[in-house]
């Protein structure tokens, strides 16, 4: 059996709100699961169970209080919970990608450039990166007349689809998907399902959050119920 690309063991997280007299909010407790190449693990459970926080912790965007988050980079295993910032940045460049439904718009950079630059980051040649960017924007029904424009003025749905294209363009073995299909129409949801299937076939491990049951049923190999971990809220 192949080794997991990401493996969480005993992960716990709480926020301390110093501006609220040090109030502590426990987010997750004792979370353990793993995702292997070609596998899509879906995080389930009600809103507030800490699903997004878990994805952000794997990506190194949120700190991890206790436990280990082991991410495999070739032969090397890196514990994101303790890794140096530059090690986490190297993982983000070559190993793990994160896709949310929100695009952080940078002034003056066109939609096509955003997607192509993202593909190039993971090591694709300039030519391949452009081809892939064009293919993804076409598949996701972003009108060609918009490609050369910065997405600042696009509709919410168009920005979301550019963001999905950007997130799925690079070749990285671990993908973290935070509700990428939320508020997409059925046709575009089907495209995202197809792209996720392609990633799985190529051997990527995926950890995702999908509220849409139809999408979840199609892509999930396993559902990890977060409610089982989130013991005693608001301690």
């Amino acid at each position, binding site marked *: 059996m192949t080794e997991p690309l990401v493996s969480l063991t005993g992960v716990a997280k709480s926020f301390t709100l110093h*501006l609220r007299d040090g109030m502590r909010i426990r987010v997750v407790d004792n979370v353990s699961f793993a995702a292997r190449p070609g596998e899509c693990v879906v995080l389930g459970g009600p809103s507030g169970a800490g699903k997004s926080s878990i994805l952000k912790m794997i990506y*190194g*965007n*949120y700190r991890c209080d206790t436990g280990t988050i082991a991410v495999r980079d070739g032969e090397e295993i890196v514990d994101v919970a303790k890794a140096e*910032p*530059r090690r*986490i*940045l190297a993982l983000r460049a070559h190993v793990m990608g994160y896709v949310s439904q929100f695009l952080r718009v*940078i*002034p003056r950079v066109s939609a096509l450039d955003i997607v192509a630059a993202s593909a190039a980051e993971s090591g694709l040649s300039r030519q391949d990166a452009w081809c892939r960017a064009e293919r993804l924007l076409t598949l996701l029904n972003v009108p060609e007349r918009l490609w050369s424009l910065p997405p600042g003025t696009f509709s919410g749905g168009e920005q979301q689809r550019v963001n999905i294209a950007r997130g799925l363009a690079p070749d990285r073995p671990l993908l973290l998907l935070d509700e990428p299909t939320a508020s997409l129409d059925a046709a575009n949801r089907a495209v995202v399902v197809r792209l996720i299937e392609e990633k799985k076939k190529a051997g990527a491990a995926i950890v995702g959050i999908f509220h849409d049951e139809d999408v979840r049923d199609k892509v999930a190999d396993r559902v990890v119920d977060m409610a089982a971990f989130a013991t005693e809220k608001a301690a």
Partner: protein
Amino acid sequence: MNHAPLLTARGLSKHYGPRIGCEAVSFDLYEGEVLAVVGESGSGKSTLLKLLATETPPTAGSVHYRMRDGAVRDLFALTEAERRFLLRTDWGFVRQDAREGLRMSVSAGGNVGERLMAVGERHYGRIRGTALDWLGRVEIDGDRIDDLPRDFSGGMRQRLQIARNLVTHPRLVFMDEPTSGLDVSVQARLLDLLRGLVAELGLAVIIVTHDLAVARLLSHRIMVMRHGRVIETGLTDQVLDDPSEAYTQLLVSSVLAA
């Protein structure tokens, strides 16, 4: 990737009599890494930048720098010639007030060409050609090459200052509030330009800013300073999205979302 740090600061302190400028600052900076130093005015971030750029000697502590030949040197034990080489060639310093970083009575082309001449370039045509190329890269029209910076707008002066600093292909650039004092639209253009150049040239940058949005857009890592001390440090998005110290939480929550 080179695994040895480019710059290493250890226990760096500066006292002005009984007043603390900065206290016991330690960090490593690697090639291609952008480090933002954030904090309110009086937090010690500008003092730290002056120490690192050897503009003022420390009360205690050390800064080591890996020279182009690979030798690691104590910055406060350099000969004056070595220090000049760093300042003119291997380092850049982009100042908040472009008038301090430019020669206001010298043409735009002269401002860029001067740093080239300092490293031994003598051929007038080549100097002018390189200056023209760099004006283009910072989006200044080539026909302004003979104009004086005093006739430039604030944003143009700042872009000219960047060209002057980058023309010698430095490995490390210090930036002190490079975008403050500019209109918001001018800021966005400058930030976009800086972001592109930093990535393209693989520059190491230490940028002092009070603007968390600037830190988020440009930097990989962040150090939060207060009362002269570093109180929190880490990946930029981690510190801004999951701040752990009370003061950092206050800073992050004080930003108005547009």
